[in-house]
Protein backbone atom coordinates (compact mmCIF):
# COMPACT_ATOMS: atom_id res chain seq x y z
CA UNK A 1 0.00 0.00 0.00
CA UNK A 2 1.66 3.19 -1.14
CA UNK A 3 -0.34 5.80 0.76
CA UNK A 4 0.02 4.29 4.20
CA UNK A 5 2.05 6.38 6.60
CA UNK A 6 4.29 4.43 8.95
CA UNK A 7 4.88 5.96 12.36
CA UNK A 8 7.97 4.52 13.97
CA UNK A 9 8.84 4.73 17.62
CA UNK A 10 11.74 3.18 19.36
CA UNK A 11 11.22 1.88 22.89
CA UNK A 12 14.37 -0.21 23.15
CA UNK A 13 15.65 -0.17 26.70
CA UNK A 14 12.12 0.01 28.11
CA UNK A 15 10.62 -2.99 29.90
CA UNK A 16 7.13 -4.06 30.93
CA UNK A 17 4.74 -2.54 31.67
CA UNK A 18 6.12 0.72 30.19
CA UNK A 19 6.48 -0.87 26.74
CA UNK A 20 2.80 -1.81 26.65
CA UNK A 21 1.61 1.49 28.12
CA UNK A 22 3.66 3.59 25.67
CA UNK A 23 2.42 1.51 22.73
CA UNK A 24 -1.18 1.73 23.94
CA UNK A 25 -0.81 5.51 24.22
CA UNK A 26 0.40 5.69 20.61
CA UNK A 27 -2.42 3.43 19.42
CA UNK A 28 -4.96 5.57 21.31
CA UNK A 29 -3.56 8.74 19.76
CA UNK A 30 -3.82 7.28 16.24
CA UNK A 31 -6.77 4.90 16.52
CA UNK A 32 -8.91 6.48 13.79
CA UNK A 33 -6.06 6.59 11.25
CA UNK A 34 -5.05 3.03 12.17
CA UNK A 35 -8.60 1.73 11.73
CA UNK A 36 -8.95 3.45 8.37
CA UNK A 37 -5.64 2.05 7.18
CA UNK A 38 -4.06 5.47 6.64
CA UNK A 39 -1.44 4.88 9.32
CA UNK A 40 0.47 1.98 10.75
CA UNK A 41 2.72 1.86 13.77
CA UNK A 42 6.16 0.31 13.81
CA UNK A 43 7.35 -0.39 17.35
CA UNK A 44 10.99 -1.28 17.98
CA UNK A 45 11.66 -3.05 21.25
CA UNK A 46 14.18 -5.38 22.83
CA UNK A 47 11.69 -6.52 25.48
CA UNK A 48 10.54 -10.03 24.63
CA UNK A 49 7.53 -10.01 26.98
CA UNK A 50 5.80 -7.26 25.07
CA UNK A 51 5.89 -9.25 21.81
CA UNK A 52 2.92 -11.13 23.31
CA UNK A 53 1.08 -8.42 25.18
CA UNK A 54 1.20 -5.74 22.46
CA UNK A 55 -0.18 -8.00 19.63
CA UNK A 56 -2.90 -9.30 21.96
CA UNK A 57 -3.97 -5.79 22.99
CA UNK A 58 -3.85 -4.66 19.33
CA UNK A 59 -5.95 -7.66 18.29
CA UNK A 60 -8.53 -6.86 21.00
CA UNK A 61 -8.82 -3.39 19.53
CA UNK A 62 -9.54 -4.81 16.09
CA UNK A 63 -6.02 -4.28 14.77
CA UNK A 64 -3.40 -6.70 13.61
CA UNK A 65 0.21 -6.92 14.78
CA UNK A 66 3.04 -8.69 12.98
CA UNK A 67 6.19 -9.41 14.99
CA UNK A 68 9.63 -9.81 13.44
CA UNK A 69 12.98 -10.31 15.09
CA UNK A 70 16.00 -8.64 13.54
CA UNK A 71 19.18 -9.38 15.49
CA UNK A 72 18.36 -8.49 19.11
CA UNK A 73 15.51 -6.13 18.28
CA UNK A 74 11.87 -7.00 17.72
CA UNK A 75 9.73 -4.96 15.36
CA UNK A 76 5.99 -4.99 15.87
CA UNK A 77 4.00 -3.64 12.94
CA UNK A 78 0.51 -2.63 14.02
CA UNK A 79 -1.99 -1.98 11.27
CA UNK A 80 -5.59 -2.33 10.12
CA UNK A 81 -6.98 -5.91 10.30
Amino acid at each position, binding site marked *: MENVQTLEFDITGQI*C*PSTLLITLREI*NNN*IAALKSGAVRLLVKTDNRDCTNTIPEAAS*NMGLTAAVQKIDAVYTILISKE
Partner: protein
Amino acid sequence: MDTIPDTSMTGNNAETDEITALRQELTRLRSANEQLTNTLQLRTGYIRTKVNQLLNVMGTKPLRDEELDGNSIVEFDPLGIIFESFRHILASLKEKNSQLQLLHDEMVAIFSAVQVGIMVVDRDFRVISFNPTMKNIFFTGLEDGAIFGELCSRIACNGQIPDEFCAVRKILEGAEFASFKSWEVRGRIFDVEAAPIHDSAGLVTRIVLVYNEITGLKKAQNELQQMNTELELRVAERTAQYQEINQELESFCYSVSHDLRAPLRHVSSFTTILAEEYSNKLDVTGRDMLVRICRGSEKMGRMIDDLLRISRVSLTEVNFVAVNLTSLAESTAAMLRDSDPERRVTFNIAKGLSARGDAALLGIVMQNLIGNAWKYSAGISAAVIEVGMKKIAGKEVFFVSDNGVGFDMTYRDKLFRVFERLHGEEFEGSGIGLATVQRIISRHRGEVWAESEVGTGATFYFTLPENKLK
Protein backbone atom coordinates in the same frame (compact mmCIF):
# COMPACT_ATOMS: atom_id res chain seq x y z
CA MET B 1 13.42 23.62 59.71
CA ASP B 2 12.24 26.23 62.22
CA THR B 3 13.20 29.68 60.84
CA ILE B 4 11.33 31.90 63.35
CA PRO B 5 13.81 33.48 65.84
CA ASP B 6 13.37 33.01 69.60
CA THR B 7 12.61 36.56 70.90
CA SER B 8 11.51 35.60 74.41
CA MET B 9 14.62 37.14 75.83
CA THR B 10 14.14 40.50 74.13
CA GLY B 11 11.31 41.54 76.34
CA ASN B 12 9.30 42.85 73.45
CA ASN B 13 5.85 41.45 74.15
CA ALA B 14 4.31 42.46 70.84
CA GLU B 15 6.95 40.68 68.88
CA THR B 16 6.68 37.73 71.19
CA ASP B 17 3.01 37.42 70.55
CA GLU B 18 3.49 37.69 66.82
CA ILE B 19 6.17 35.06 66.89
CA THR B 20 4.00 32.77 68.97
CA ALA B 21 1.17 33.22 66.48
CA LEU B 22 3.48 32.51 63.63
CA ARG B 23 4.73 29.38 65.35
CA GLN B 24 1.21 28.19 65.86
CA GLU B 25 0.40 28.88 62.20
CA LEU B 26 3.52 27.02 61.16
CA THR B 27 2.54 24.05 63.27
CA ARG B 28 -0.94 24.08 61.71
CA LEU B 29 0.46 24.34 58.24
CA ARG B 30 2.87 21.49 58.90
CA SER B 31 0.03 19.36 60.15
CA ALA B 32 -2.08 20.27 57.13
CA ASN B 33 0.83 19.52 54.83
CA GLU B 34 1.31 16.17 56.48
CA GLN B 35 -2.35 15.40 56.05
CA LEU B 36 -2.30 16.45 52.40
CA THR B 37 0.84 14.40 51.76
CA ASN B 38 -0.82 11.38 53.35
CA THR B 39 -3.94 11.97 51.32
CA LEU B 40 -1.91 12.29 48.09
CA GLN B 41 -0.03 9.12 48.93
CA LEU B 42 -3.31 7.35 49.54
CA ARG B 43 -4.68 8.63 46.20
CA THR B 44 -1.60 7.74 44.17
CA GLY B 45 -1.51 4.39 45.99
CA TYR B 46 -5.10 3.82 44.93
CA ILE B 47 -4.30 4.81 41.35
CA ARG B 48 -1.24 2.55 41.36
CA THR B 49 -3.30 -0.37 42.72
CA LYS B 50 -6.00 0.07 40.09
CA VAL B 51 -3.45 0.51 37.29
CA ASN B 52 -1.70 -2.67 38.42
CA GLN B 53 -4.99 -4.56 38.49
CA LEU B 54 -5.74 -3.42 34.96
CA LEU B 55 -2.21 -4.23 33.79
CA ASN B 56 -2.68 -7.70 35.25
CA VAL B 57 -5.86 -8.05 33.20
CA MET B 58 -3.82 -7.12 30.14
CA GLY B 59 -1.29 -9.81 31.01
CA THR B 60 1.66 -7.64 31.86
CA LYS B 61 3.72 -6.76 34.94
CA PRO B 62 2.77 -4.18 37.64
CA LEU B 63 4.29 -0.68 37.83
CA ARG B 64 7.51 -0.35 39.74
CA ASP B 65 7.69 2.34 42.43
CA GLU B 66 10.98 3.72 41.13
CA GLU B 67 9.58 3.95 37.63
CA LEU B 68 6.67 6.27 38.36
CA ASP B 69 6.53 8.26 41.60
CA GLY B 70 3.43 10.01 42.90
CA ASN B 71 3.77 13.01 40.60
CA SER B 72 4.83 11.06 37.51
CA ILE B 73 1.93 8.64 37.79
CA VAL B 74 -0.48 11.53 37.58
CA GLU B 75 1.48 13.17 34.79
CA PHE B 76 1.94 9.97 32.69
CA ASP B 77 -1.65 8.97 33.40
CA PRO B 78 -1.51 5.18 32.88
CA LEU B 79 -5.07 4.90 34.12
CA GLY B 80 -6.18 7.24 31.33
CA ILE B 81 -4.19 5.29 28.75
CA ILE B 82 -5.67 1.97 29.83
CA PHE B 83 -9.16 3.44 30.09
CA GLU B 84 -8.87 4.80 26.55
CA SER B 85 -7.56 1.45 25.31
CA PHE B 86 -10.43 -0.39 26.95
CA ARG B 87 -12.82 2.00 25.25
CA HIS B 88 -11.33 0.97 21.90
CA ILE B 89 -11.41 -2.68 22.87
CA LEU B 90 -15.09 -2.38 23.74
CA ALA B 91 -15.79 -0.66 20.43
CA SER B 92 -13.96 -3.43 18.59
CA LEU B 93 -15.83 -6.13 20.53
CA LYS B 94 -19.11 -4.43 19.70
CA GLU B 95 -18.21 -4.46 16.02
CA LYS B 96 -17.17 -8.09 16.19
CA ASN B 97 -20.38 -8.94 18.00
CA SER B 98 -22.33 -7.37 15.15
CA GLN B 99 -20.39 -9.45 12.64
CA LEU B 100 -20.93 -12.58 14.73
CA GLN B 101 -24.62 -11.82 14.95
CA LEU B 102 -24.75 -11.51 11.16
CA LEU B 103 -22.91 -14.80 10.76
CA HIS B 104 -25.25 -16.38 13.28
CA ASP B 105 -28.29 -15.10 11.36
CA GLU B 106 -26.84 -16.44 8.11
CA MET B 107 -26.18 -19.81 9.71
CA VAL B 108 -29.70 -19.96 11.11
CA ALA B 109 -31.11 -19.12 7.66
CA ILE B 110 -29.01 -21.84 6.01
CA PHE B 111 -29.83 -24.26 8.84
CA SER B 112 -33.53 -23.65 8.23
CA ALA B 113 -33.47 -23.62 4.43
CA VAL B 114 -31.17 -26.55 3.67
CA GLN B 115 -32.89 -29.67 2.40
CA VAL B 116 -30.83 -32.09 4.45
CA GLY B 117 -31.54 -32.98 8.06
CA ILE B 118 -29.09 -31.45 10.53
CA MET B 119 -28.90 -32.29 14.21
CA VAL B 120 -26.38 -31.27 16.88
CA VAL B 121 -25.80 -33.52 19.90
CA ASP B 122 -23.60 -33.23 22.98
CA ARG B 123 -21.06 -35.72 24.28
CA ASP B 124 -23.86 -37.62 26.02
CA PHE B 125 -25.69 -38.19 22.71
CA ARG B 126 -28.39 -35.72 23.70
CA VAL B 127 -30.06 -33.46 21.13
CA ILE B 128 -29.07 -29.80 21.42
CA SER B 129 -30.51 -28.44 18.17
CA PHE B 130 -32.00 -29.55 14.85
CA ASN B 131 -33.29 -27.94 11.68
CA PRO B 132 -36.83 -28.07 10.22
CA THR B 133 -35.86 -30.72 7.63
CA MET B 134 -34.59 -32.95 10.42
CA LYS B 135 -37.85 -32.48 12.24
CA ASN B 136 -39.84 -33.35 9.13
CA ILE B 137 -37.80 -36.50 8.59
CA PHE B 138 -37.57 -37.91 12.10
CA PHE B 139 -39.55 -35.87 14.60
CA THR B 140 -42.95 -35.39 12.99
CA GLY B 141 -45.70 -35.00 15.56
CA LEU B 142 -43.30 -34.16 18.38
CA GLU B 143 -43.14 -30.83 20.21
CA ASP B 144 -39.71 -29.20 20.16
CA GLY B 145 -39.58 -29.45 23.94
CA ALA B 146 -39.90 -33.23 23.72
CA ILE B 147 -36.92 -33.43 21.36
CA PHE B 148 -34.31 -31.27 23.11
CA GLY B 149 -32.26 -33.33 25.55
CA GLU B 150 -33.49 -36.65 24.16
CA LEU B 151 -30.98 -39.35 23.22
CA CYS B 152 -30.27 -39.25 19.49
CA SER B 153 -30.00 -43.03 19.43
CA ARG B 154 -33.61 -43.25 20.61
CA ILE B 155 -35.22 -40.36 18.79
CA ALA B 156 -33.42 -40.53 15.42
CA CYS B 157 -31.72 -43.87 14.98
CA ASN B 158 -34.47 -45.68 16.79
CA GLY B 159 -31.80 -48.00 18.20
CA GLN B 160 -31.23 -49.48 14.77
CA ILE B 161 -27.55 -48.64 14.32
CA PRO B 162 -25.06 -50.95 16.02
CA ASP B 163 -22.40 -49.18 18.10
CA GLU B 164 -19.62 -49.94 15.61
CA PHE B 165 -21.47 -47.97 12.91
CA CYS B 166 -22.56 -45.05 15.12
CA ALA B 167 -21.08 -41.85 13.64
CA VAL B 168 -21.30 -39.97 16.95
CA ARG B 169 -19.36 -42.72 18.70
CA LYS B 170 -16.67 -42.61 16.00
CA ILE B 171 -16.27 -38.85 16.47
CA LEU B 172 -16.03 -39.24 20.25
CA GLU B 173 -13.36 -41.89 19.68
CA GLY B 174 -11.24 -39.31 17.86
CA ALA B 175 -12.36 -39.32 14.21
CA GLU B 176 -12.48 -35.90 12.52
CA PHE B 177 -15.15 -37.13 10.14
CA ALA B 178 -17.46 -40.13 10.21
CA SER B 179 -20.10 -41.40 7.85
CA PHE B 180 -22.60 -44.18 7.47
CA LYS B 181 -23.64 -44.71 3.89
CA SER B 182 -27.00 -45.94 2.64
CA TRP B 183 -28.59 -46.28 6.08
CA GLU B 184 -32.10 -47.66 5.73
CA VAL B 185 -34.66 -46.65 8.31
CA ARG B 186 -38.45 -46.54 8.20
CA GLY B 187 -38.45 -47.29 4.48
CA ARG B 188 -36.10 -44.43 3.64
CA ILE B 189 -32.39 -44.36 2.83
CA PHE B 190 -29.85 -41.82 4.12
CA ASP B 191 -26.17 -41.02 3.90
CA VAL B 192 -25.25 -39.91 7.42
CA GLU B 193 -22.17 -37.78 8.05
CA ALA B 194 -20.80 -36.43 11.30
CA ALA B 195 -18.21 -33.82 12.27
CA PRO B 196 -17.01 -32.58 15.66
CA ILE B 197 -17.13 -29.13 17.24
CA HIS B 198 -14.15 -28.57 19.55
CA ASP B 199 -13.78 -26.23 22.50
CA SER B 200 -10.72 -23.95 22.90
CA ALA B 201 -8.84 -26.83 24.57
CA GLY B 202 -9.48 -29.07 21.56
CA LEU B 203 -12.02 -31.33 23.26
CA VAL B 204 -15.10 -32.46 21.36
CA THR B 205 -18.05 -30.67 22.90
CA ARG B 206 -20.67 -31.19 20.21
CA ILE B 207 -21.21 -33.36 17.18
CA VAL B 208 -22.99 -32.15 14.03
CA LEU B 209 -24.92 -34.86 12.18
CA VAL B 210 -26.11 -34.41 8.61
CA TYR B 211 -28.77 -36.73 7.15
CA ASN B 212 -28.87 -36.62 3.36
CA GLU B 213 -31.82 -38.55 2.02
CA ILE B 214 -30.93 -40.65 -1.03
CA THR B 215 -34.09 -42.77 -1.27
CA GLY B 216 -34.96 -41.39 -4.73
CA LEU B 217 -31.38 -41.67 -5.93
CA LYS B 218 -31.10 -45.27 -4.75
CA LYS B 219 -34.39 -46.13 -6.40
CA ALA B 220 -33.18 -44.61 -9.66
CA GLN B 221 -29.84 -46.42 -9.32
CA ASN B 222 -31.60 -49.73 -8.72
CA GLU B 223 -33.85 -49.17 -11.72
CA LEU B 224 -30.84 -48.24 -13.83
CA GLN B 225 -28.97 -51.30 -12.64
CA GLN B 226 -31.97 -53.47 -13.44
CA MET B 227 -32.23 -51.88 -16.87
CA ASN B 228 -28.51 -52.46 -17.41
CA THR B 229 -28.84 -56.08 -16.39
CA GLU B 230 -31.77 -56.52 -18.75
CA LEU B 231 -29.87 -54.75 -21.50
CA GLU B 232 -26.80 -56.92 -20.94
CA LEU B 233 -29.00 -59.99 -21.05
CA ARG B 234 -30.57 -58.82 -24.30
CA VAL B 235 -27.16 -58.02 -25.78
CA ALA B 236 -25.90 -61.45 -24.73
CA GLU B 237 -28.96 -63.10 -26.27
CA ARG B 238 -28.57 -61.06 -29.45
CA THR B 239 -24.83 -61.79 -29.59
CA ALA B 240 -25.53 -65.49 -29.15
CA GLN B 241 -28.10 -65.28 -31.97
CA TYR B 242 -25.60 -63.49 -34.20
CA GLN B 243 -22.90 -65.99 -33.33
CA GLU B 244 -25.26 -68.82 -34.16
CA ILE B 245 -26.27 -67.20 -37.45
CA ASN B 246 -22.63 -66.48 -38.23
CA GLN B 247 -21.71 -70.07 -37.47
CA GLU B 248 -24.52 -71.26 -39.71
CA LEU B 249 -23.32 -68.93 -42.48
CA GLU B 250 -19.76 -70.20 -42.09
CA SER B 251 -21.00 -73.79 -42.23
CA PHE B 252 -23.15 -72.93 -45.22
CA CYS B 253 -20.18 -71.31 -46.96
CA TYR B 254 -18.06 -74.35 -46.18
CA SER B 255 -20.75 -76.74 -47.50
CA VAL B 256 -21.37 -74.71 -50.63
CA SER B 257 -17.64 -74.42 -51.33
CA HIS B 258 -17.22 -78.11 -50.69
CA ASP B 259 -20.22 -79.06 -52.85
CA LEU B 260 -19.06 -76.76 -55.67
CA ARG B 261 -15.80 -78.66 -55.95
CA ALA B 262 -17.44 -81.86 -57.29
CA PRO B 263 -19.19 -80.29 -60.33
CA LEU B 264 -16.11 -78.10 -60.89
CA ARG B 265 -13.96 -81.24 -60.93
CA HIS B 266 -16.29 -82.62 -63.60
CA VAL B 267 -16.00 -79.38 -65.63
CA SER B 268 -12.23 -79.41 -65.20
CA SER B 269 -11.72 -83.11 -66.05
CA PHE B 270 -14.06 -83.03 -69.10
CA THR B 271 -12.38 -79.84 -70.32
CA THR B 272 -9.00 -81.59 -69.99
CA ILE B 273 -10.30 -84.62 -71.94
CA LEU B 274 -11.76 -82.23 -74.52
CA ALA B 275 -8.41 -80.44 -74.83
CA GLU B 276 -6.43 -83.70 -75.05
CA GLU B 277 -8.65 -85.77 -77.36
CA TYR B 278 -10.73 -83.32 -79.38
CA SER B 279 -8.54 -80.24 -79.78
CA ASN B 280 -7.54 -81.35 -83.31
CA LYS B 281 -11.19 -81.13 -84.26
CA LEU B 282 -11.43 -77.51 -83.13
CA ASP B 283 -10.22 -74.47 -84.98
CA VAL B 284 -7.91 -71.86 -83.44
CA THR B 285 -10.76 -69.88 -81.89
CA GLY B 286 -12.29 -73.03 -80.42
CA ARG B 287 -8.95 -74.09 -78.91
CA ASP B 288 -8.46 -70.58 -77.44
CA MET B 289 -11.89 -70.80 -75.85
CA LEU B 290 -10.98 -74.20 -74.44
CA VAL B 291 -7.79 -72.76 -72.87
CA ARG B 292 -9.83 -69.90 -71.36
CA ILE B 293 -12.35 -72.39 -69.92
CA CYS B 294 -9.46 -74.36 -68.36
CA ARG B 295 -7.95 -71.22 -66.80
CA GLY B 296 -11.35 -70.12 -65.54
CA SER B 297 -12.09 -73.44 -63.91
CA GLU B 298 -8.61 -73.51 -62.32
CA LYS B 299 -9.12 -70.01 -60.92
CA MET B 300 -12.54 -70.96 -59.63
CA GLY B 301 -10.96 -74.02 -58.02
CA ARG B 302 -8.39 -71.83 -56.22
CA MET B 303 -11.13 -69.46 -55.05
CA ILE B 304 -13.17 -72.36 -53.69
CA ASP B 305 -10.08 -73.64 -51.89
CA ASP B 306 -9.51 -70.19 -50.38
CA LEU B 307 -13.13 -69.97 -49.28
CA LEU B 308 -12.85 -73.37 -47.66
CA ARG B 309 -9.66 -72.23 -45.89
CA ILE B 310 -11.23 -69.06 -44.52
CA SER B 311 -14.28 -71.02 -43.42
CA ARG B 312 -12.04 -73.44 -41.57
CA VAL B 313 -10.35 -70.49 -39.82
CA SER B 314 -13.71 -69.38 -38.50
CA LEU B 315 -14.87 -72.82 -37.54
CA THR B 316 -11.66 -74.06 -35.94
CA GLU B 317 -11.36 -73.75 -32.18
CA VAL B 318 -8.48 -71.46 -31.13
CA ASN B 319 -6.03 -73.31 -28.96
CA PHE B 320 -4.05 -70.73 -26.96
CA VAL B 321 -0.43 -71.65 -26.27
CA ALA B 322 2.89 -69.78 -26.18
CA VAL B 323 3.89 -69.27 -29.82
CA ASN B 324 7.36 -68.46 -31.12
CA LEU B 325 6.62 -65.93 -33.85
CA THR B 326 10.30 -65.59 -34.79
CA SER B 327 10.41 -69.28 -35.64
CA LEU B 328 7.17 -69.04 -37.69
CA ALA B 329 8.55 -66.04 -39.61
CA GLU B 330 11.88 -67.75 -40.28
CA SER B 331 10.11 -70.93 -41.59
CA THR B 332 8.00 -68.80 -43.92
CA ALA B 333 11.06 -66.91 -45.16
CA ALA B 334 12.89 -70.19 -45.84
CA MET B 335 9.90 -71.56 -47.73
CA LEU B 336 9.69 -68.42 -49.89
CA ARG B 337 13.44 -68.50 -50.62
CA ASP B 338 13.13 -72.15 -51.70
CA SER B 339 10.23 -71.22 -54.00
CA ASP B 340 12.38 -68.73 -55.91
CA PRO B 341 16.14 -69.18 -55.20
CA GLU B 342 17.05 -66.58 -57.80
CA ARG B 343 15.45 -63.69 -55.90
CA ARG B 344 17.66 -61.55 -53.67
CA VAL B 345 15.61 -60.53 -50.62
CA THR B 346 17.01 -59.47 -47.23
CA PHE B 347 14.98 -60.75 -44.28
CA ASN B 348 15.42 -58.92 -40.96
CA ILE B 349 13.55 -61.01 -38.44
CA ALA B 350 13.77 -59.93 -34.80
CA LYS B 351 14.74 -62.59 -32.27
CA GLY B 352 12.53 -63.61 -29.38
CA LEU B 353 9.14 -62.61 -30.83
CA SER B 354 6.46 -64.47 -28.93
CA ALA B 355 2.79 -64.26 -28.06
CA ARG B 356 -0.09 -66.40 -26.86
CA GLY B 357 -2.21 -67.86 -29.62
CA ASP B 358 -2.99 -70.78 -31.87
CA ALA B 359 0.31 -71.88 -33.48
CA ALA B 360 -1.31 -73.18 -36.68
CA LEU B 361 -3.49 -70.08 -37.19
CA LEU B 362 -0.62 -67.68 -36.44
CA GLY B 363 1.45 -69.66 -38.96
CA ILE B 364 -1.21 -68.77 -41.58
CA VAL B 365 -0.96 -65.10 -40.50
CA MET B 366 2.83 -65.11 -40.98
CA GLN B 367 2.57 -66.93 -44.33
CA ASN B 368 0.05 -64.39 -45.63
CA LEU B 369 1.77 -61.23 -44.38
CA ILE B 370 5.34 -62.27 -45.27
CA GLY B 371 4.02 -63.85 -48.51
CA ASN B 372 2.41 -60.51 -49.42
CA ALA B 373 5.64 -58.65 -48.60
CA TRP B 374 7.53 -61.11 -50.82
CA LYS B 375 4.98 -60.77 -53.60
CA TYR B 376 4.68 -56.96 -53.64
CA SER B 377 8.46 -56.40 -53.45
CA ALA B 378 9.09 -58.66 -56.43
CA GLY B 379 10.08 -55.79 -58.70
CA ILE B 380 12.56 -54.29 -56.20
CA SER B 381 16.21 -55.13 -56.81
CA ALA B 382 17.19 -54.80 -53.12
CA ALA B 383 14.04 -55.98 -51.41
CA VAL B 384 14.04 -55.89 -47.63
CA ILE B 385 11.42 -57.58 -45.49
CA GLU B 386 11.40 -56.87 -41.78
CA VAL B 387 9.50 -58.72 -39.05
CA GLY B 388 9.59 -57.23 -35.54
CA MET B 389 7.79 -55.79 -32.56
CA LYS B 390 7.50 -52.31 -31.06
CA LYS B 391 5.75 -50.98 -27.97
CA ILE B 392 2.93 -48.56 -28.71
CA ALA B 393 1.20 -47.07 -25.65
CA GLY B 394 2.74 -49.84 -23.56
CA LYS B 395 1.31 -52.59 -25.74
CA GLU B 396 3.28 -55.03 -27.85
CA VAL B 397 2.59 -54.46 -31.56
CA PHE B 398 4.06 -56.90 -34.12
CA PHE B 399 4.73 -55.79 -37.67
CA VAL B 400 5.75 -57.07 -41.09
CA SER B 401 7.13 -54.45 -43.46
CA ASP B 402 8.54 -54.34 -46.96
CA ASN B 403 9.93 -51.78 -49.38
CA GLY B 404 7.74 -52.91 -52.25
CA VAL B 405 5.11 -51.15 -54.33
CA GLY B 406 2.93 -50.24 -51.35
CA PHE B 407 -0.68 -49.16 -51.76
CA ASP B 408 -2.81 -46.03 -51.70
CA MET B 409 -4.07 -45.43 -48.16
CA THR B 410 -7.32 -44.08 -49.59
CA TYR B 411 -8.35 -47.68 -50.19
CA ARG B 412 -7.13 -49.12 -46.88
CA ASP B 413 -10.70 -50.03 -45.88
CA LYS B 414 -10.84 -52.49 -48.77
CA LEU B 415 -7.64 -54.27 -47.72
CA PHE B 416 -9.18 -56.82 -45.41
CA ARG B 417 -12.37 -57.53 -47.36
CA VAL B 418 -12.84 -60.94 -49.03
CA PHE B 419 -11.94 -60.95 -52.75
CA GLU B 420 -11.04 -57.23 -52.66
CA ARG B 421 -7.67 -56.49 -54.34
CA LEU B 422 -5.82 -53.20 -54.59
CA HIS B 423 -3.55 -54.42 -57.41
CA GLY B 424 -4.26 -55.82 -60.85
CA GLU B 425 -3.32 -59.04 -62.62
CA GLU B 426 0.39 -58.16 -62.40
CA PHE B 427 0.31 -59.66 -58.91
CA GLU B 428 -1.39 -63.02 -58.64
CA GLY B 429 -3.82 -63.74 -55.81
CA SER B 430 -7.48 -64.20 -55.00
CA GLY B 431 -7.84 -61.36 -52.48
CA ILE B 432 -8.61 -63.59 -49.56
CA GLY B 433 -5.28 -63.66 -47.70
CA LEU B 434 -5.68 -60.44 -45.70
CA ALA B 435 -9.33 -61.27 -44.95
CA THR B 436 -8.06 -64.55 -43.47
CA VAL B 437 -5.40 -62.65 -41.46
CA GLN B 438 -7.99 -60.29 -40.03
CA ARG B 439 -10.30 -63.15 -39.10
CA ILE B 440 -7.50 -64.99 -37.30
CA ILE B 441 -6.28 -61.90 -35.43
CA SER B 442 -9.85 -61.06 -34.50
CA ARG B 443 -10.36 -64.56 -33.12
CA HIS B 444 -7.28 -63.87 -30.94
CA ARG B 445 -8.99 -60.67 -29.68
CA GLY B 446 -6.29 -58.65 -31.42
CA GLU B 447 -6.27 -55.91 -34.03
CA VAL B 448 -4.65 -55.60 -37.44
CA TRP B 449 -4.04 -52.49 -39.53
CA ALA B 450 -1.71 -51.26 -42.25
CA GLU B 451 0.25 -48.17 -43.23
CA SER B 452 1.71 -47.51 -46.62
CA GLU B 453 2.70 -45.06 -49.29
CA VAL B 454 2.65 -45.92 -52.97
CA GLY B 455 6.15 -46.80 -54.14
CA THR B 456 7.82 -46.95 -50.72
CA GLY B 457 6.43 -50.18 -49.26
CA ALA B 458 3.87 -51.23 -46.69
CA THR B 459 3.80 -52.16 -43.02
CA PHE B 460 1.19 -54.44 -41.50
CA TYR B 461 0.73 -54.23 -37.72
CA PHE B 462 -1.09 -56.67 -35.47
CA THR B 463 -1.61 -57.24 -31.76
CA LEU B 464 -2.02 -60.49 -29.87
CA PRO B 465 -2.49 -61.55 -26.25
CA GLU B 466 0.89 -61.15 -24.54
CA ASN B 467 2.87 -64.20 -23.55
CA LYS B 468 3.24 -63.49 -19.82
CA LEU B 469 5.49 -66.47 -19.24
CA LYS B 470 8.28 -65.39 -21.56
